[in-house]
């Protein structure tokens, strides 16, 4: 009896991501209720509660934002599309149907460039992005889920808030690639000003579809949906776990155990677990929403949106690399809009990009992290930082003094000008050669013994003189000038001694 030897089969994962982006419009998608944070059921009206006789009317800003998102995702914008009703019963869904877009999404066939931590890039296709409305929120008492709870309360504040569902092509192969896609998508939405983007608040909700197949195979394996990931690192871990789980099942001949289901990610265990099985395809009985006329996107609107469109994060990254910044720096600077905006303003105010990047990525980023604030909240204006950087570059102050004075400036001091503030504080560096010559003369005269030793060959004493000089100048002497003058004077003294 011969035992069949399993050939070493390599597997690959196929990953696609659906993301619900909450658009940050002032009012809901189809009524005039505010979208701002409020106490439960404060932002409701007969329309979003689906009272009899009420009708939806599309918020124009929703359309504009969808067009902007589509352009930012390099999608085609459908000049004509429509809304459909997706029907199911659930207490958080007031009408018994969700207004969505079924077969005519407003944006389709897009592509974005994602970037991995090592700076390499991947291109991910966007299948479509369509508009829909959010449902309310269920608060279950006595259980995390509807089943098993004593009772459930519904908060309809979120019902009718506009969502853009962005569906990627199944172009990703690893958890890292998926996380890179997700973070780039968030970055794009934030840079375009389309969402608040707070994951914990549910502003962006990612559903990941993972399947595994033998490398080289054209057919797709059974896909599993993973939900409930509250960060990109959690997403990466969830996917990697899921890939391993599925590959193991393949390898051990139990691939039939991979079933179409929805799994949740348990952050503490770094595992996914079954939430519900999908028994056949749910029949949502989509049909065109008769209460809303077809959506026409005019060339004028597209033109207007294009004109006012902010710079994409990928373009920002490229721009920073063109400034000869290291790749790692460029990635971090272009990671978050407030940082990038701040950095751009510092450079625009005349600072050298390299020095500005050092300050922004170093001291300022540390400060914002420590004080848990955003670059938008900094009291040190980009103009002031540029002045500070310029002063160091010009030698008006030393880098050391710059770092010393930074906490003061971050408290909002020096608003009338950094140099004026330094001067007022007596922190301006002494770079004047004759002043430093006088200083050096004084120090050499005050230390004849050391000078004599130096001349006798103890050149190490140069450091001693520098120390004395810095002390005498209260640290304000320009080190470069000081060194130059000191060397000159010591050489003269040495020559004289010979």
């Amino acid at each position, binding site marked *: 009896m011969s035992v069949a030897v399993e050939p070493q089969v390599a597997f690959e994962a196929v990953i696609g991501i659906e993301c619900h982006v909450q658009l940050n419009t002032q009012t809901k998608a189809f009524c005039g209720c505010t979208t701002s944070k409020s106490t439960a059921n404060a932002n409701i009206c*007969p329309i979003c*509660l*689906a*009272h*009899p*006789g*009420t*009708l*939806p*009317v*599309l918020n124009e800003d929703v359309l504009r934002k969808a067009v902007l998102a589509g352009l930012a995702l390099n999608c085609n914008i459908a000049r004509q599309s429509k809304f459909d*009703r997706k*029907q199911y*019963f*659930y*207490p958080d869904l*007031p*009408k*018994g*149907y969700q207004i969505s877009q079924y077969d005519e999404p407003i944006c389709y066939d897009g592509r974005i460039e994602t970037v991995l931590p090592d700076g390499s890039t991947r291109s991910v296709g966007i299948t479509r992005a369509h508009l829909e409305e959010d449902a309310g929120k269920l608060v279950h008492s006595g259980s995390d889920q*509807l*089943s098993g709870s004593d009772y*459930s309360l*519904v908060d309809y504040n979120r019902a009718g808030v506009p969502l853009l569902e962005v569906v990627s092509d199944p172009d990703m192969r690893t958890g890292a690639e998926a996380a890179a896609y997700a973070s780039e998508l968030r970055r794009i939405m934030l840079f375009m000003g389309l969402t608040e983007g707070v994951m914990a608040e549910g502003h962006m909700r990612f559903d990941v579809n993972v399947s595994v197949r033998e490398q080289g195979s054209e057919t797709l394996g059974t896909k599993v949906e993973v939900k409930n990931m509250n960060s990109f690192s959690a997403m990466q871990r969830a996917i990697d776990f899921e890939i391993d789980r599925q590959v193991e099942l393949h390898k051990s001949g139990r691939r039939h155990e991979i079933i179409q289901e929805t799994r949740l990610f348990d952050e503490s265990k770094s595992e996914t677990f079954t939430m519900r099985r999908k028994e056949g*395809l749910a*029949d949502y*009985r*989509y*049909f065109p929403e*008769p*209460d*809303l*006329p077809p959506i026409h996107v005019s060339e004028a609107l597209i033109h207007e949106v294009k004109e006012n469109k902010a710079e994409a994060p990928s373009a920002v990254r490229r721009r920073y690399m063109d400034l000869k910044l290291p790749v790692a720096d460029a990635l971090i600077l272009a990671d978050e809009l407030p940082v990038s905006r701040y950095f751009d303003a510092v450079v625009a105010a005349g600072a050298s990009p390299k020095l500005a990047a050092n300050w922004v990525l170093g001291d300022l980023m540390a400060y914002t992290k420590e004080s848990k604030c955003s670059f938008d909240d900094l009291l040190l204006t980009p103009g002031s930082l540029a002045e500070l950087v310029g002063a160091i570059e010009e030698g008006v102050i030393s880098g050391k003094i710059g770092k010393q004075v930074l906490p003061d400036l971050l408290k909002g001091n020096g608003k009338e000008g950094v140099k004026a503030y330094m001067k007022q504080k007596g922190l301006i560096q002494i770079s004047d050669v004759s002043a430093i010559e006088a200083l050096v003369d004084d120090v050499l005269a005050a230390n004849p013994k050391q000078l004599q030793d130096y001349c006798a060959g103890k050149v190490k004493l140069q450091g001693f003189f520098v120390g004395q000089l810095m002390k005498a100048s209260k640290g304000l002497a320009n080190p470069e000038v000081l060194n130059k003058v000191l060397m000159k004077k010591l050489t003269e003294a040495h020559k004289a001694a010979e």
Partner: protein
Amino acid sequence: MLCIFSSPCLHQKPAQLARQSIKTACSSSITYRSRLNSSANSVGKCLGARRMAETGMIGQSQRKICKGITIPCAAAAAAPSATSTSLIRQIQLDLRSKSRSAVDITEQYLEQLEAAEPQVRSFITVTAESARTSARQLDERISREGSSSLGPLAGVPLGIKDTLCTAGTETTAGARVLKGYVPSYDATSVARLKAAGAIIVGKANCDAFAMGSTTESSDYQVTRNPWDLDRVPGGSSGGSAAAVAVGQCVGTLGSDTGGSIRQPAHFCGVVGIKPTYGRVSRSGLIAYGSSLDCVGPLARTVEDAALMLTAISGRDDLDATSSPRQVPDFAEGLPEASSLNSRPLAGKRIGIIRETVGAGVAAGVSDAFTRAAKHLESLGADVDEVSLPSSDAGLPAYYVIATSEASSNLSRFDGVRYGLCKQGANIREVYNETRGEGLNAEVKRRILMGTYALSAGYYDAYYKRAQQVRTLVQREMYAALAEHDALISPAAPTVAYRIGQVVSDPLEMYKGDLMTVNLNLAGLPAMVVPCGFEEGGGSQGQALPVGLQIIGRAFGEADMIRIGHIFEQTADFAQGKPEGFR
């Protein structure tokens, strides 16, 4: 059965939209009852008699034209200066001349309402107290500010179909699941009537969620046809039509998804207008079939209906499907009977829809319709026949689309936020119990049909195909209306059904919508004007009214209304009022 188009030539396969002269057909097969004035020559004589009657010159307020039929004389109690037959115009004159106060008028109608209600049961809710308050406030305003700023419907008592939301007044749509539901807002059409000064006297009965053709599907009460209390008033706006027929109010709002204004108008002998889709806001109309639903007026005269339609029409920011088109004053320039020449419709081309006449149409309806067509011709119109071959496909397409949309629109009645709520061990049970008890058999039937039609695997065969038929029907209608100023047809194949006659036979009932649904599919305006009677058709030998359906071009209500008005003002044979009511 007397069939007006039994001539063999008309049963030849026609070229699409062929225009054929009605004369050929009529000459061979129609006999006219001698007492009916339908020739051009007699029109003038009729008008004279009519005017005398209206102005009280023949010394009586009602004139019997045959057994059981009397002419309503709106102006009888009024100053003889009023030559219009419009009750609303009369009220405006009276308020301005101070011959009657708003309170007088309201009390008069409330009295008629209360008197007729035990027999007819038109209203689910009567808002007598708030009507009295509104009337009193109006009188105070008149005494304070004079009458120069009065709205066009000032002091006019009106009823509202219960499918339309009224702020602070229970609104049920005739359905148990909405028992006790009090809206926080007025439907736009209701708000506009109020803004025009109207006084709301109550909420009219209807089939639950407007699903029915008899008003027997109301979960509250059966409304009876004032012409024959053993018969239904039609539906779904049966309460609205009956209330107008017995003078419980001057006019009512109805809603029309497949004929729900026009068929009851025909059954009850009143005027009903279904405007162009989009002309009147649907905001506040409890949805049945959203792409078909229209709000429109029912009234005693065309002019009254036109005045109401003018008040409620126009773009509404709360309804994205409402049209921004300019709204003309539909009642402006409607000629008084006395000003008409002998051929007031000269130059008008009117097409009879061939598919709506002939086999399947009851003799009484057929006779009255033929007479009406002949009358239009005598008024100078060029009447011919037009074939709309897709007509018959309209009815099934209508039932697929209407029920599909209904299955979705009625999902919101789940017991979670308002209306009936049955407790259950879990949410599924709450749904099942609430909807099981709150929705009646006819409503459930339509939800099931619609759910089926939209289901995966059936969508293309039903919903999609129905939409294709809809496009076809619409195209044919538009093409016919490119050649004609208006099309006409009977409003329904029969006069009013007996109570219980069709309610247990849904297919029979659905077939009654044959002549009306295509206009909803096409979105076109259509109105029903009384055009005669089926003599002795009632249970006690009463005459039962028959209505003429006039179809206009999209947003061409003004022309359609003018034709209807001229017909009404000259067709004395069509006038009447049910006996036994004040």
